[in-house]
């Protein structure tokens, strides 16, 4: 199968689409890291309004970087992003009584707002600021 694939790839070496295809395919074969193997960090999630078919009522922006927090908060917490003192205590308690106290979680530590310009049902246009919409930083709590 590998030989067949190499032959196919060399035959379509100049074809961008095919190159893209084989690249993606190769990536899929690469074993992925098991989930939550990385330390707590802020990760990008782009929310595109056009993908939702909302472009007829949301005038601006086209989309926004929503972000989210993901990752592990394991002991020692020094290596993790923005670990709070509470998280350190929580970890110790969790280590002592793992079934009673949960381990600290990776969550937003700072949030920002997002303004959206949209039409309502009456053709009025609304410019609204939504507080606490954007994750600015993550940390272990």
């Amino acid at each position, binding site marked *: 199968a590998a030989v067949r694939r190499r032959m196919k790839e060399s035959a379509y070496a100049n074809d961008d689409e095919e190159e893209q295809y084989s690249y*993606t395919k190769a*990536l899929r074969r690469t074993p*992925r*890291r098991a989930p939550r193997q990385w330390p707590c960090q802020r*990760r*990008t999630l*782009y*929310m595109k309004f056009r*993908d*939702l078919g*909302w472009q*007829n*009522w949301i*005038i*601006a*922006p086209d989309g*926004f970087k929503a972000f989210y927090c993901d990752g592990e908060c394991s002991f020692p917490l020094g290596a993790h992003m923005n670990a709070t003192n509470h998280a350190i205590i929580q970890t110790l308690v969790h280590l002592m009584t793992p079934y009673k106290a949960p381990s600290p979680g990776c969550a937003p530590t*700072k*949030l*920002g*707002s*997002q*303004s*959206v*310009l*949209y*039409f*309502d*049902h*009456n*053709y*009025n*246009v*609304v*410019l*609204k*600021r*939504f*507080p*606490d*919409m*954007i994750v*600015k930083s993550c940390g272990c709590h």
Partner: protein
Amino acid sequence: GVYRDNGVDRTERTAEFSGRDKREMQHEILTLLGLHHRPKPAGHSTTDYSAPRFMLNLYNSITSDGGIVDDGNRPQFPRNVTIENEIEPTEGSDVIMSFVNHAKKIKHLRRQRDRTFYFDFSEITPKETVARAELRLYKEKAGKWKKHKFQVQIYMIQQGDNPENYQIVTESNLTVRANYQGWLTFNLTNAASHWTYSPTTNMGLFMKIIFLKKNRDVKPEKFGIVGRKGPEYKQPFMVGYFRSTPELHVRKTR
């Protein structure tokens, strides 16, 4: 779809929503935005009409000013953003809203559509405080009278003694020369507050234009006020600047 960083240099699609998932996801995002359902405005283009144009200018000014995504320390929209060299619209507001004139839909206003205005405040709840509201009318140069002064008077229409009677109460006025060209801005904060707290009292607005030298009324079109027959980007509209109370941001249990 759901896209993830592939750990190298690209984003790849890892999952695709079914129709039901899409609807649920849309509902989640609408809830996040504080909306009950998805608005469906048909046929209005951002660039054609005066109100969306104004709002887009305002939005762009705010974004270029760095106010679009803040760090949580900035309490509201930035102040002192000037649009079209004449207004300072943001006033520390949480919500800024433009209103389209619906006079043609109101029975008692329909006859004099170029003199009357109706702005639908039914979506505004009493929890929102009106920081400021203004009516914006576009005026072309008048064909005659040149530098003579005129007073543009805006009245709030109120219910009279019986259901068929109406009375008008002065709301705002502006003295303008006949050869002036551009947007006229009238302060309607009082009317907007009134309509917010008591929506049933909203019976619209009435406009009079008085030739001050002769103390007589003239027609808006002769004075150059752009009415319903004028271009879309010069149509009158109202802008409201609202401050929300903190309770509004608390999500309700579904």
